[in-house]
Every structure is written in C-alpha cells, then in structure tokens.
C-alpha cells in the first residue's frame, strides 16, 4: 500500500513515541503493526528521519544496539511529541470525513 503524502512523518513520530529506536527497529515496528501492508523503502525512511531531525522533531545519537552494533538512535523531542498529537488528530479527522463520504448509502444527507 502506497502511503498518502505526508503521512510517513506522522507514522515515524508515532513509532518513536514508544521510545528511542534505530532505523531498522522503526521500519520493523511499522511493518509489524500494519501486517506488512505499509510499504516504505528504507532509503525514504532514512531521509524522513533526517528531515524530522532537521526540524528538531526528533533527536539522534549514536549508541550500541543489543546485538553490539553501532546504530543511530532516534528519539522524540517535546516538539515532536506536540506535532504528533496535532497531526494524528488532524489525520484521524480527515480519514473519518473521507470514510463518511465514501461509505455514503444515499444521495440525501
């Protein structure tokens, strides 16, 4: 399933709301939560992470993974948390509206 424009950022923020993760953890979590239906290439994900970091919605730090490898860990900043709240509310409203229209059974309101 291709993503709607702009939703990847919200999904990444949501993922990171559970705690700091590195890139592979993020994409793995997204895959598992969507039963593999969300299809984001790894390059796009990494780019999105850089973009979010540039806007100070997330912060990054190099650390060692459980497997003993170096990885760049990302965590949500408070600005990112606020953005997540706002964006997810807006997105859910949007989807509700779309759903209401697309599932309408009659032309009369």
């Amino acid at each position, binding site marked *: 399933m291709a993503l709607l424009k702009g939703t990847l950022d919200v999904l990444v923020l949501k993922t990171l709301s559970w705690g700091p993760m590195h890139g592979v953890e993020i994409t793995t979590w997204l895959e598992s939560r969507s039963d593999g239906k969300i299809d984001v290439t790894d390059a796009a994900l990494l780019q999105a992470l850089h973009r979010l970091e540039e806007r100070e919605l997330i912060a990054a*730090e*190099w650390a060692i993974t459980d*497997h003993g490898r170096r990885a760049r*860990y990302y965590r949500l900043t408070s600005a990112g948390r606020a953005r997540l709240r706002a964006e997810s509310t807006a997105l859910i409203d949007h989807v509700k509206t779309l759903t209401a229209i697309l599932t309408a059974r009659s032309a009369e309101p």
Partner: protein
Amino acid sequence: MSPQRDRDRDAFRAGVRRPFKFPLFTRAAARADADAELDAFLAERIDRLVLSGLTPADARAEALRRLGSPEADARLVLRRSAQRRQRHQWLRQAAADLREDLRLAVRRFAHSPAFTATALLTLAFGIGANTAIFSAVHGLLLAPLAFPNGNRIVMPMQENDRYRGDSRFERRNMAGALIEAWQQRTHTVEDIAAASEYMFSLDADGTIDTLTSAVVTVNFLPMLGVEPLVGREFSPGDVVRHGPPNVAVISEALWRQSYAGRSDIVGRTVTLDGRPLTIIGVAPAGLNIPLSHKTPPDMWVPGALTDAVDGGTGSLDISPSVFALLRPGVSVDVASRELESIAAGVPNAAGLGGRLRVMRAQDFVNAGETRALEVLFAAVGALLLIACATVANLLLARAWTRQREFAIRGALGAGRRRLARQVLTESMSLALAGGLLGIGVAGLTLRVIVALRPPGLDRLADVHIEPAVLLWTLVVSVLTGLSFGCAPAFFAGLHPVGDVLRRETRAGSAGVTSRRVRATLVVLQIAASLALLVASGLLVRSFAALQRMPLGFEPRGLLYADVLIAGTHEQRGTIRDEIIRHLQSLRDVTGVSIGVMPGKGWLGGGVEAEIDRQGHTADVPALGTIMMSPGYLRVARIPLLAGRLPDSTSFSSLGPGGWSSEVLVNRALARRLWPAGRAIGAHVREKPFPGRPPAPWSTVVGVTSDTRIPGESGDVAAYQVYTIDRLVGEVPFVVRTTMSGDDAAPIVKRAITAVDPHIFARPILSGDTYLRDGLAPTRFAMSLLTAFGVVALALAAIGLSGVIAYSVSQRTREIGIRLALGAEPSSVVRRVVSGGLGLVALGIALGAAAALAATRALSSMLYGVGAADPPTFVAIALLVGAIALVASYVPARRALRIDPAQTLRAD
C-alpha cells in the same frame, strides 16, 4: 509529572551506552555520519534477515532491495539530507551561542555601569563624529554630481600658461564658433551644451527677489540626463534671438520655497528684470552643476550661442561655460585630444592662447573648499583611533580583573576559543551599541556642521544621514569592535589556570605584556590627540592672522549694489545721478561712489592691455580694471600710497571704448609692470582689437594699496576713472554707512528702488558679509578640529588616569610597605606620577612627529603661519603635558590614602 514526559527524559534505554559523539560541524563530518548510518542500517538489516533463516548472500540482496533504490543513489541522497540537517543545526547552535554570549555580555555590562557608560560615550563620540563627517564627505566628495549623467560630464577649458594654478585666470569659457565646430565634428562626445550665469531680479506676485539664473542651450538639461519634475523641457522654438527669453524652468528649491510645490506652477507668469516670463517646468533637485557661482541656479532660461558682445539676456554670454557629455567608455584624455585637434582648426578659437584642458565636472565642484572636509575626515579618523584605544584600555583593565573568572571557566571546560568569542561578543555588542548612540551624536554634529558651514560648502545643508552613511557606521562600528576587542580576546585565555588561581591573592602580577599594551595605547592616544590639537592650533592662529590681515580698505559698513538701469544714455545718466543724490540723503550714509567691492575681482573680468616701455609696447595679459568715480577711494577707504588722484578733466577726456587719460594702479600691479619703481608717469592702454586703431595711452598718476579679502588673493588691478559712456545698463555703486553693512543693506535697497520702479537692484552685498564669508572656511575647519581635539585630549586624559589608577591599585602592597617603612607620601606620589610622565613624554614626541607630517596637508588652509609653526607646537605640547600631569596626579593621590596596616593585613 506525566508518564509521557517521564519517558522523554529517560530517553535512552538503560543498556544503551553512548560512547560516540560526533561534532557535526563540517560538511565532511555530516557526510561521514550519513555513510556510517547507512552502513549500520544495512548491517543490522542483514543480521536480522540472516537470523530469520536467509543465507548471508540472499540476506544482503534482500536488504538492498528494500532500500528501494541503488545503494549509490541512496547514499548520495542521504548525504545531501544529512548535510542540510547539519547546516540547520549549526545555524541554530550559532544563534543559541550568540544569544547566550549576548546575555552574559549584557549582564556583565549591567554590573559595571560606570565602565559601560564611559565606554559607550567614548564610542558614541568616536563613531558619531566619524559618521557625521562621512555624511558630508559622502554627500560632497563621493557623489558630487547627483544626476544621471554626472560622471560623464566634462568641461573643456582654457588654461593660461602664465597664471597656471591661479583659478581666477583660468578661463573655462569659450567662443561660440569653437563650440559649434566641436558640435559638428566630434566623435568622442555625445553632446555639447553651454551655459552662462546671471543674477536676476524676479518679481513674483509683487515680491522682488534676486536670484541666480542660467542661460543655457536647449540641450543642456537633457544632456545632464534630467527630466523635469513638472512641465516640459525647452524646445528649440523657445529660443528668442536678440531679445529677452520668455520661458523658464525653475529649480525644485525655488518651486518649494516660493510656490510651496504647487502643481499649477506651469504656465504661471513671473517678471524677470521687468520682463514677463512663463514658467514651463520644474527641474529636479540636485542639479549642482558647477557654474561660476557656488550655489546652483534658481532658474534656467533658454538661449542661443552668440558671438555678439552684448547679446542681452536672450543670448548666452560671449564666453559661456561649456559642458560636454562623453560617449560611454570614452576616457577624458581621448576626448581631450580630439577636442584640442578640432580647436586647432578654428581661427581665433584659442582665446587668450592658453592650452585646452578637459576636466571632469565632478572634479570642478568645490575643488578648493573640499580641502577642509578632507582634513576633517582625517581628524575624525584620528579621533576614532583614540576612542578605540580608550575602550581597549578600559577592556584590558577589566580583562585582568576577570582573569580568575576566565581561569575558572577554562578549568570547567570552556575552550580558549569559546572564551575569546565571548570577549569579542562583549566588545562587538559594546561597539554596535556605541554605533547606535553614535548615530544620535552624528545627527547633532551634523547640525553643528551645517550651522557653521562656509558659503563654499553650502550644499552641506542638503546632507543627511543616508543609508550609505548608516552602512559606513555599521562597518566602522564592527571594525572598531574588532580592533579594541582583539587585545582582550587575545589575553582572555592566555594564562594557565593554575598560575592565575595560585596567585589569586596577589593582585600585583598583572603581567608585563598587558602593562606594555596599555602603556602603548596611552602613548598612542596622547600622540594622536597632540597631532589633532596642533592642527587645530594652527588653524586658530591662521584665523587670528586672517582677522588681522591688512585689507587695504575698510569692508565693515561698506555696501555694494549692482543696479540695472534701462533707457537711453541720457535717461540712465539722470537716474544714476538721482540714485546717488537719494543715497547721499540717507541719514546713515556718509559716502556714495561708483565702483565695485574691493578685493572681489573685477567687473567683467580681465582685459588684455599693453604698456609703453621706452617707446616699445609690451603685452600685459589679463589686467584687471576697476571703474570708479572720483570719490571711490574715499568711500572704500583705500589709501593712496603715491602720486595723486586723476584730474577731474580725465572724466570728459576719453573717447568711446577708451580708458580715462589718467589712471591709478595698485601696488602689486606697479611692482609687476614697473619693477624699477617708475610706475607714476608710465603709459598703459587696452590692447587694440586686430585691425582697429589703438586707443590713446593713459597715464598712471597714482599708486593705491592692494585690496584683498580673506579667502581671495590680492588683486592686480588698474583703476580707471568711470564715465557714463562705459555704462551698459548696469551701474556698480559702493555706499559707506555708519551702520553695520547687514543692517544697512535693506535700507539702501529700498532707497535705490524708490527712485524709479523700473530699477532692478541685484542683491546688496555688504563688506561685512564678504569678510565673514572669507573667514568662514577657516572658522569652520578650526571650530570642528578644535572640538575634536578637545574630545581627543579628554579621552587621552581618561586613558592615562586609568592606567595610573590601575598601577596604584596594583602596587597597593608595595606602597603600603614603603609607607610602613617610613617613606614620605609625597615621594610615593612622585614615583607613581613619574611613571606616567614617561609615557606622556613619549606620546608628545611621537605626536609632534606625526603632526609635522600631517599638517603639511593643511598648509593650503593656513594663513600667516607655517605648517611647522614652533610656537603652536610648543604651546600644544605644554597643554597636553599639563593635562597629562593632572590626569596622572589625581589618581596617584590615592596612594596617600593607603593605610599600610590594612594593606599588609589584607594578604
């Protein structure tokens, strides 16, 4: 606390260590970081895929597939996004650091208000004076001709070899035939226009005003690249040959002053010298094209080139000022050569036979008067230098008291670079705040400058603090901040922490380097202020000398009126006599005569003459002649040095165009033409025109003193007796009054115009005004330089007393011991003061040397005093020395208040 925030704070899992920290401050680092991240990502991916059962090769292929694009492409994209991110982070970091530094700086300044106020005021004066003078320099020197084609306008003029360098003999005027030849044949010049200047009486709605007006060829204004603000330009049809002009374009200034900028100005009729004239347009402001007067014309009227001597107001002068517009890219030299070769082919074009010279019009604007501005510009440079030294001194003194703070901060991890940056931030914010205040100071200074401006720098009134000037202030402030901030910044991190903290209780070890730097700064300040004061001292002496200058006549209470009389010879004669009678009847008038204001050149310029030298005639180029009636010398109070006045028969004995049979010469002319001293009895006459019979010889019967006015060089002149036959509708009167000339001028003007309503008196000029205007350039430069010099000396005194006070505070212990051991307090003070006086002596010596070099540039502004005038140098050196003595004695007296017991207990 919400659970969410809790998580936020405890962001990294307990097991995660953080051994790597990348300083992401370069592009390369950002790129390496992006590469490392991609590699780590792929490795982790492959690890996980292998764990799920794939072979390493399959796992790698799968990982690359999931990347979504070829690895190399993905790497490039990620490097770019990482670099962009890094740039943003760097900017944010820099801004945050700056905010922090500023916060620290402001807090620190607030803690020491006395220091801050002193530093700010010093900087405000230094930068403000600089800004004010730069405004003037910018307005007058850098952008002298503020109209579109200003930098391409040149002025061809003829040089007289004999009087090269004396601008009064330099003719920039040329015959019409030559101008026409140029117009037809030139390839280097786009257009040639000519202009002559006149003074007119303008009768606008009943109020008569005198104004400067220029008769110009119709292409003159378009050639400058200006378009009328309102109305239209001249067209060829506007030119009235052999008659007065009937249309005019007025200046923006006149439009605003006299017509309040009303848009219905076009089509209005005014009366110029009694003739009606229709205004057809308004020229934009800033047309300060250099004509003969120092102020730009108020009005332009169209005229045609003519060779007629008396063309009337409808034609240009026989020898107008010529202006040419260079084609783009053509140099002045190339145009000059071409115009010269064309001129060579025009008969009689050579005029007085001088060499042709083409000059940029912008170099001609106020060429003489701008010297004052250049000198002042150098002076404010010196003043700024002194201000910088003062503030650097203050900052250095603080830097030493702050050594402990810096040492501790250094020990806690602040890098030397960080500390230096903080010190620089402090000096920069100080400098910029000083610059901001300086703009206020500049505004005030500019007002003073405008109020004091000499007539030659009249355009100063239009000078404002413009954006370019503010840019200059910014640059000056930044440079200032850097220059006085560098020394403290350098010393900020210089000392090893241990050293500073260990000697914490011993305040006496300020460091030899610092003391030397501060001493050097004080020497510099004293030297620069001495140089400034010497320059101002020389000007003060010049001013005094100018006031005492022998003038050869009495300008105070002498008025000069140039009156236009219409009518036949007989009518003009009657009106003239009527005016004289009327003026003589005035209560405060003691004498009336015909003649010009002495010391201000000749009426109508010089003539070519010849003298009889033992039977041979010898040429006398450019001889000034002054027409007078018999009472002239008495009214102007010009002493007759030898001989007698012309005989009364001399008035009636001359033929048309000839001179009176008996003439006077002034002493300078007598010495020039008859060096053997046999002027009286010698013969002189006007050089006959080619093909005309010579006029009869005139005999020199007397020698008068030379007359001069400050600012003008003495005239070389022959006086000849005036007769009505020489009248061309224009009579010069001099009037002696018992009042001041300024008060009498309106009375005399009313008296003249009361004789006949059709008389137009050009502005009544008083000798008092001439005298004042002649002194004005010197007074202008003198006042400002003296003000700058006094500020400079005050700053130097502050700097010196700071150094002495500091050295006393540093030597408290030593002084305490000395006093405890029985030293006389006065000998202690003497020791401290003598340390300061060494600096003073060095500063005075250096300053005197600098002044010797610098005042040479001043020599053209000096009168009656040499650029290396010993009394001035000695007096200023003594003054500076005395002030320095006081400045070091006052803080040195603190040593007397030192209580030995307390000092020793303190450690």
